[in-house]
Every structure is written in C-alpha cells, then in structure tokens.
C-alpha cells in the first residue's frame, strides 16, 4: 500500500450502524444456534429410538433370508436338509 492518507473521521451514524449490526448479529447467531441445537436434540433422540427398532427388524429379516438361501443352496447342491433346520 503506497500512501494510505490521513485517517477518515467516520460519520457517527455509520459507526453506530456498524456496531449495532455487529452486536445484533452476535446475539442473533447465538440465539438461532441455541434454538437449532434444541430442535436437533429432539430429532436425534427420536432417530436413535427408531434406529433401535429398525436394527432389530433388519436383523430378523436377515436371519430369515439367510435360512431360505441355505435351503435353496442345499436343493441346488443336492444336499439333504436336516429336519430341524
């Protein structure tokens, strides 16, 4: 920067506007963040509950499919299926 010149005397309205905007922004940012965090906590709790149920369902289906696949493979391979499978 070659020559910066003398410092400018900024109008009070502009200074007031800048600082008000900064402070309002900080307050708004903090309050919005807190409200979003509260909402996310509720959603996260519901999701963990649903996830537990979903995991149980998926495990059950997987077991069932596994069993059916084994029976099919036994049929293809010519292996006899034991009676209590």
């Amino acid at each position, binding site marked *: 920067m070659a020559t*910066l010149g003398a*410092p*400018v*005397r*900024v*109008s*009070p*309205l*502009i*200074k*007031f*506007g*800048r*600082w008000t*905007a*900064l*402070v*309002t*922004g*900080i*307050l*708004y*940012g*903090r*309050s*919005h*963040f807190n409200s*979003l*965090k509260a*909402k*996310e906590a509720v959603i996260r709790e519901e999701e963990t509950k649903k996830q537990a149920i979903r995991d149980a369902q998926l495990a059950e289906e997987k077991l069932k499919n596994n069993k059916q696949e084994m029976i099919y493979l036994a049929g293809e391979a010519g292996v006899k299926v034991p009676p209590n499978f």
Partner: protein
Amino acid sequence: MSKLIARIPVLAKSAVDSATPKLNTFMRYAKVELVPPTPAEVGGVAQGFNNIMKSAQTGAWKNIPVKDAWRNVLVTTEVLCWFFIGECIGKGTFVGYQV
C-alpha cells in the same frame, strides 16, 4: 533438534519486530475509524438519521451525483455485512451451524 528449538525465540522476536510497524499503522487508523461511537456522538447519530429522512421526503435523494449514490450503496452494504460477521461469531463457525 535443540538448535531448532533455540531458534524459536529469535524467530519470534524477528516476527514481532517486522509486524510492529504494520500494527502501529493499523492502530493509528483503527483509533479514529473503528472505535464505537462515544456518548457524545449520539446527537450526530440522530442528526444523520434525520438528514436521510429529510432527503427521502423532499426528494433530494434523486438529485445527488451517481458517484455519491454509489458510495452510499457501498457503505450501506458494508454496514449490513457486519451483521453477518456478527452472526458467524455468535454461531461459532463460518459456514453452517454445528448442531
């Protein structure tokens, strides 16, 4: 390794020495331009606001030069941008809210 550690205070001192004049220049401008308005300037705030209102009412805003109008637009945009800077400070990150 011990030589590297021995060089750290020398480097720190040289960094401070090279930054001090720039810092001084910054402080010289900041003390005049960036300080918040003192209580004595509250009258100036009301006056400036009244000027804007009067110019809006009388239609004098249509007669200012384009250069001045453009400067006003830029200053207004800058003032509004401080709100977003404040929002970033309040929420803690630059992009997005880390909930």
